[in-house]
């Protein structure tokens, strides 16, 4: 199930999962499967979230909208576009089951071979690491989670170094001694290593191990990493490479040099090795298992959510592909979907000292084992350790912004637990934190959107959808509270307040966004009363419904009101209502009520009575011409002058 059906909100945007955040939106996007366009999915919005890449069709959003879960994405490619061909981003699904078995057997074979070759030393080093290559992520096809040690990538030579086991992100500071890079000997910066270790901890218990998975078991089996092993490592690597079976190497078609399979260009002559087999070997046999050619054409019946597409392409016809690609890259690196089941707070020192950590849900977790210190001293120590721990998390979070992003979850958890602890009485502060956290979810910011020519309108339409979602959200019940109708100005104030002072919207943009509701067929609508007041109400709430509502109220008054008010045909005409009464009855504001009454009057359903007590509205008995008709010859009809010539003729008796 690579392509999955997509749940949409009332405003026709993807429903976000908990923890999922919207990263980017781009309009005018089409979808391809392999080389072929998918019929019916050619004009829509692409939504990139931390968990998914979604396509929402413009014409039939409910029917043809799909999502690709990023965790099922093996790799993605960027195609910049050429002449009339638009820029595209291709998402390749993860290899199906049999391919992954194959790849696993492949790696075990090479492992055993390696072990046979150099039983004592080869395990110190990473076998085939060459910087960041697609190989890395595909190596994790075996789904079993493994305990791992963190690695940091050297900024100079991009070699993946292990983080020393003594390095504890909770206690380390910039004075902690750091080992230099194994290959180039340059010392890393402290935040860099810290980041790596936090990232590792975050991804540790997910289904997918960290990108440097092959290294980790080897390192663990070896135990402590020793600083003076760089020469040994290089030797080992050479041995490694020469030990690779000839078959798994790729011969350069130009110079016949036997290249390492992970190389994209010949090491010797630079000829591209991207052609057939090398490419296949590159992704560890994935493409061998799956034949290259799809059917000659893609008819609509063959396309479905169930069958596995070779790859899915997002075609960006109005730009925005670069930012999409960038954010996609970020999302693939961050792997927020793993956070869903992530351990609360990385507990690096759990092995040696038992401490109490604050869980994500604010609960206090008991350590696995505790030092046996009892009494006040024990309590004090416990408290001290807890403070230390929290200090470390906060300290590391603010070390730099990327690190903050990685430890966002911990920080939010901490903030929440602080808020809970601080005071039960200060519910306001608590509320504030909860609300601001919520507000973060619903913000449509300008930077989320494409920077193409239509970005202004895209921003507005996204804002418009955002607003509609906000209004129709049953949990908030904004409209219901206001009797199904509220003025645009009120909405603006409420909405901006809900945003918590971040990314406020200007009134002008707000009005523009509101005016788009009708065009986007959203479930709310903007109405203008004749005095210029703009109000917001549900789209299905028409004038006719309001009039029917008003009339039924007036009908009720025929019978219900007190019989003391005689003097006119009370039983016939009922009673008049004021705007205040209507407002009270329907929960409207008085301004809205009087506008609604006047609207009904304008439509002829009501008529007015101006009196000393104010304006009252009645059922319209005036237009009913029958009630006053008598059998007399009184004429009230328009007067038409008779043609004088005809009249003369008539008078003379001729006509």
């Amino acid at each position, binding site marked *: 199930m690579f392509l999955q059906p997509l749940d949409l909100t009332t405003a026709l945007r993807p429903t976000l999962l908990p923890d999922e955040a919207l990263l980017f939106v781009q309009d005018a996007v089409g979808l391809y499967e392999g080389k072929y366009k998918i019929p019916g999915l050619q004009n829509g919005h692409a939504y990139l979230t931390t968990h998914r890449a979604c396509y929402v069709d413009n014409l039939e959003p409910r029917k043809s909208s799909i999502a690709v879960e990023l965790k099922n994405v093996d790799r993605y490619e960027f195609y910049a576009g050429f002449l009339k061909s638009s820029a595209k981003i291709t998402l390749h699904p993860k290899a199906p089951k049999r391919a992954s078995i194959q790849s696993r057997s492949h790696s075990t074979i090479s492992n055993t071979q390696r072990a046979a070759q150099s039983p004592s030393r080869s395990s110190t080093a990473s076998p085939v690491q060459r910087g960041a290559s697609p190989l890395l992520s595909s190596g994790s096809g075996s789904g079993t989670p493994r305990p791992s040690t963190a690695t940091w990538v050297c900024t100079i030579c991009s070699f993946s170094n292990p983080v020393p086991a003594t390095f504890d992100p909770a206690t380390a500071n910039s004075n902690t001694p750091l080992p230099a890079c194994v290959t180039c000997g340059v010392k890393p910066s402290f935040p860099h290593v810290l980041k790596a270790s936090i990232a590792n901890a975050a991804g540790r218990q997910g289904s997918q191990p960290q990108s440097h998975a092959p290294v980790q078991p080897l390192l663990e089996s070896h135990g402590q990493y020793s600083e003076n092993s760089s020469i040994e490592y290089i030797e080992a690597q050479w041995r490694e490479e020469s030990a690779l079976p000839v078959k798994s190497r790729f011969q350069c078609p130009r110079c016949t040099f036997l290249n390492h399979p992970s190389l994209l260009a010949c090491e010797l002559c630079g000829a591209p090795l991207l052609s057939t087999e090398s490419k296949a070997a590159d992704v560890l046999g994935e493409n061998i298992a799956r034949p290259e050619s799809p059917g000659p054409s893609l008819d609509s019946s063959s396309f479905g959510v169930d069958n596995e597409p070779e790859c899915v392409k997002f075609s960006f016809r109005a730009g925005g592909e670069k930012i999409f690609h960038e954010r996609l890259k970020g999302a693939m690196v961050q792997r927020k979907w793993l956070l869903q089941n992530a351990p609360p707070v990385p507990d690096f020192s759990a092995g040696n000292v038992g401490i109490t950590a604050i869980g994500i849900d604010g609960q206090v977790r008991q350590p696995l084992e505790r030092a046996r210190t009892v009494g006040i001293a024990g309590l004090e120590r416990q408290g001290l350790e807890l403070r230390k721990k929290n200090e470390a998390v906060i300290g590391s979070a603010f070390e730099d912004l990327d690190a903050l992003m990685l430890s966002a979850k911990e920080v939010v958890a901490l903030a929440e637990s602080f808020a809970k602890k601080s005071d039960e009485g200060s519910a306001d502060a608590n509320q504030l934190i909860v609300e601001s956290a919520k507000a973060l979810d619903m913000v449509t910011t300008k930077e989320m959107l494409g920077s193409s020519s239509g970005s202004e309108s895209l921003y507005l339409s996204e804002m418009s959808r955002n607003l509609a979602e906000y209004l129709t959200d049953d949990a908030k019940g904004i409209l219901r509270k206001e009797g199904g109708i509220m003025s645009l100005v009120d909405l603006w104030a409420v909405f901006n307040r809900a945003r918590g002072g971040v990314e406020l919207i200007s009134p002008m943009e707000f009005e523009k966004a509101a005016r788009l509701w009708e065009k986007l067929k959203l479930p709310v609508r903007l109405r203008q009363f004749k005095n210029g007041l703009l109000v917001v109400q549900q789209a299905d709430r028409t004038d006719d419904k309001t009039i029917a509502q008003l009339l039924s109220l007036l009908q009720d008054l025929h019978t219900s009101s007190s019989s003391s008010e005689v*003097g*006119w*045909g009370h039983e*016939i*005409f009922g009673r*008049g209502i004021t705007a205040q009464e209507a407002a009270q009855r329907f929960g409207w504001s008085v301004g809205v009520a009087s506008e609604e009454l006047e609207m009904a*009057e*304008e439509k*002829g359903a009501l*008529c*007015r*009575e*101006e*009196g000393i007590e104010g304006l*009252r509205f*009645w059922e*319209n*008995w*005036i*237009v*009913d*011409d029958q*009630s*006053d008709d*008598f*059998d*007399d*010859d*009184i*004429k*009230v*009809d*328009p*007067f*038409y002058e008779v043609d004088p010539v005809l009249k003369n003729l008539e*008078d003379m008796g001729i006509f």
Partner: protein
Amino acid sequence: MAPQHSPPASAFTYPQSYSFPPFFTLQPNLQTRLSQLRKWSRLIQRYCRHEHIFKLSLVTALDTTLFKNASLRKRLSLNDALQVVDWMTRDEGGRRAEWIDGGVEANGGTVWVFWKRPEEWADVVASWVEETGQRNTVLTLYELMNGEMTVGQGMISREQRLDMSAHGMLDFHGMDAELFHRCLAVLVKRGKAQVFGSEDQQGVKFF
């Protein structure tokens, strides 16, 4: 329901709308307003015929029951009444009224209320002449308006009136002199009468 003409003191029956409070507020909605104006026009004409009124002064009429419903404690404001009557004077109101001495503002808004237009009165007079065999005789205007001959014109019973209305005969006894002049002028123009004599001693001969 229908107005009772004999005895004349019999109460005027007001239409149902007269007890509908919004009837006394001029409606802003055009369609509603049109219906309202028609109803007012009908009411004013019926009232004037019942009371035998030819000239109506709005300022004084505002305090009569025509424009004032005491039980509702409602009345039509002067401004609204002017608008109603003004509508009556226009073509779309059937020209059932006419301002006297120029316009709305002058003379406290005095109007002719044409529950019969002068042309219609001319027909009535002509057929009365026909009925009573007064052709080619000379009659004074005073005779016609106040004389005994036409008394029955104003005092006929409803049954008679219904019967006679088939012939177009209705009460012009006690008609306003000025209006009667206009009515005769129509007949003269049609060549069915001739008016002669001086100011006070005018006579008319019907052909």
